[in-house]
């Protein structure tokens, strides 16, 4: 079972004040900490679990610059066998269509029974790279997978629908699955583990090597401007010391008739 996992390095933005960059096309990233995209973390774990059960290989791919390699090192430490980085400089110049084209071109030349991608990336929240890549490769697919198992050379998946409903499907291999959070419990990775994994193969390719021109990567959806959310009235913030806040809290609950 050869599995390819597509991963992305994204900034941590919870409890962070984001600042719009001068071109108003994105946010300033120099002060941000970066991590492996949450969804991708689950995707890598799922690939490794499958490998542990059925044998085979796990290859992690990312697109970006040298800094983005840190997420590949993490994947290798988790148990991936090798990693590929496509050097493109700043990855944010491509839209999802461009990313999917590059991924498709790389995956095509790698052995793959299964290709995993996270449902969504924590930065642009587009949620389409996985499916675009599947279509570029003409691969069978299943989306938002929360459970999967291999049955008679096929993959049986549960896709998450709304309202607590799951859709069970059987998909022929090779296939691309987009992986939803919660499908497993991603393993812990230690600094030592990452150091040990440094010996594993990490291949760097550029777009010329892949044979893809900038023209083919022209964005279809163009960000004209990014901006902070317009001010809304929002919540009435309770102020004062904790005792005053707690008294106000109780008063609200009393008014709303839930104090019994």
């Amino acid at each position: 079972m050869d599995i390819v996992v597509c991963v992305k390095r994204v900034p941590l933005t919870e409890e962070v004040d984001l600042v719009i960059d001068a071109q108003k096309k994105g946010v300033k990233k120099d002060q941000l900490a970066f991590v492996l995209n949450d969804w991708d973390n689950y995707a890598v774990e799922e690939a490794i679990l499958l490998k542990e059960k059925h044998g085979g290989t796990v290859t992690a791919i990312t697109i970006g610059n040298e800094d983005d390699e840190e997420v590949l090192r993490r994947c290798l430490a988790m148990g991936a066998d090798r990693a590929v980085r496509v050097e493109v400089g700043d990855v944010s110049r491509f839209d999802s269509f461009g990313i999917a084209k590059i991924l498709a071109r790389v995956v095509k030349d790698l052995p793959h029974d299964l290709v995993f991608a996270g449902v969504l990336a924590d930065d642009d929240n587009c949620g389409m790279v996985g499916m675009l890549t599947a279509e570029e490769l003409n691969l069978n697919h299943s989306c938002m997978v929360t459970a999967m198992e291999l049955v008679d050379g096929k993959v049986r998946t549960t896709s998450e629908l709304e309202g607590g409903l799951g859709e069970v499907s059987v998909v022929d291999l090779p296939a691309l699955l987009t992986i939803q959070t919660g499908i497993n419990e991603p393993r812990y990775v230690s600094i030592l583990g990452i150091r040990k994994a440094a010996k594993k193969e990490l291949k760097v390719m550029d777009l010329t090597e892949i044979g893809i021109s900038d023209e083919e990567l022209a964005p279809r959806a163009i960000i004209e401007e990014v901006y902070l959310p317009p001010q809304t009235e929002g919540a009435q913030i309770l102020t004062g010391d904790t005792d005053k806040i707690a008294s106000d809290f109780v008063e609200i609950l009393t008014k709303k008739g839930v104090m019994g």
Partner: protein
Amino acid sequence: MSEIFVVVEHRLGEIRDITFEMLWKAGELADKLSYSVTAVLLGHEVSGMAEKLSDRADQIVICDDERVKNFNADFHKEIIAGLIEEAKPPLILIGSTSWGMELAPCLAIKTGLPLATDCTDILTEDGKLVAQRQMYSGKIFANVSFAESTGCIISIRSGVFSKDKIGDRQAQTARKDFPLADVKPTKQFVEYVETAAGDVDITQAELLVSVGRGIGEEENIALMKELAEALNGVVSCSRPIVDKNWLPKFLQVGTSGKSVSPKVYIAIGISGAFQHMAGTSGAGTIIAVNKDPKAPIFRTAHYGIVDDLFKIVPVLKDKVLEAKKVKKPWTLN
């Protein structure tokens, strides 16, 4: 007349709300741009559904085939791409739902059209369409335009537009037959399963104490349970808590969990991603406790407490217990 396509989403014989929301936006844009609205309805024995759409679209195109009784991205893609080829609509709307997230990219590759996903509005600037969407879980908004093309696909976030009808419309219905024989589905539907069954029904609770990622560690749930108990409320949670297996799925509020309608919803350590907030629209009053004053939840909550929740929650609990003690002698029941 140019048409706006709205891909009708339905499940188990019911039209889903997102369909009406898209038809509302399509109607508004159609009136502004002198377009017409076409509802694209794929399914099997769907005349009842078509009826429900008849005053919300100018045309309904029905593709009735047993193979599209349940959603299937492969079949949907082929049929809708064929319709797009024929009508060349400048705008195609698809729900940004589980199914839409699968269909929209497939359709974009098949037709070569540009796509913007999970959009919260569609604006017109000099006759051009601009989609508004969010990034970084709602902390940043973006306006997106489209590369030169015959049309564009925009997937629409659930719950952002009205479900009401807009304008006076009486739909013409057309049935289309498509040669699906040579399309081989790569995915076989097996069944729907209930993934959120359990013995506590949070949809019936009058007061919910809902916990999110901000509680940090599993053992901190105990403290939140104490607050819930003091208030005779029920504990619920957001997705990350279920993903970590700290609480069962049947306690999850949100798009993929339950929609709740308590009198009071106390959200603790929940950032307020739209997928979560979508499940709280029925709540009477939302009180959010979060240490990040920029957390999106403060945009929709009625009251907010910006503080370290481990510091404030014990005080809230004590105050509640104290108030109940004081109150008791004067209450008869």
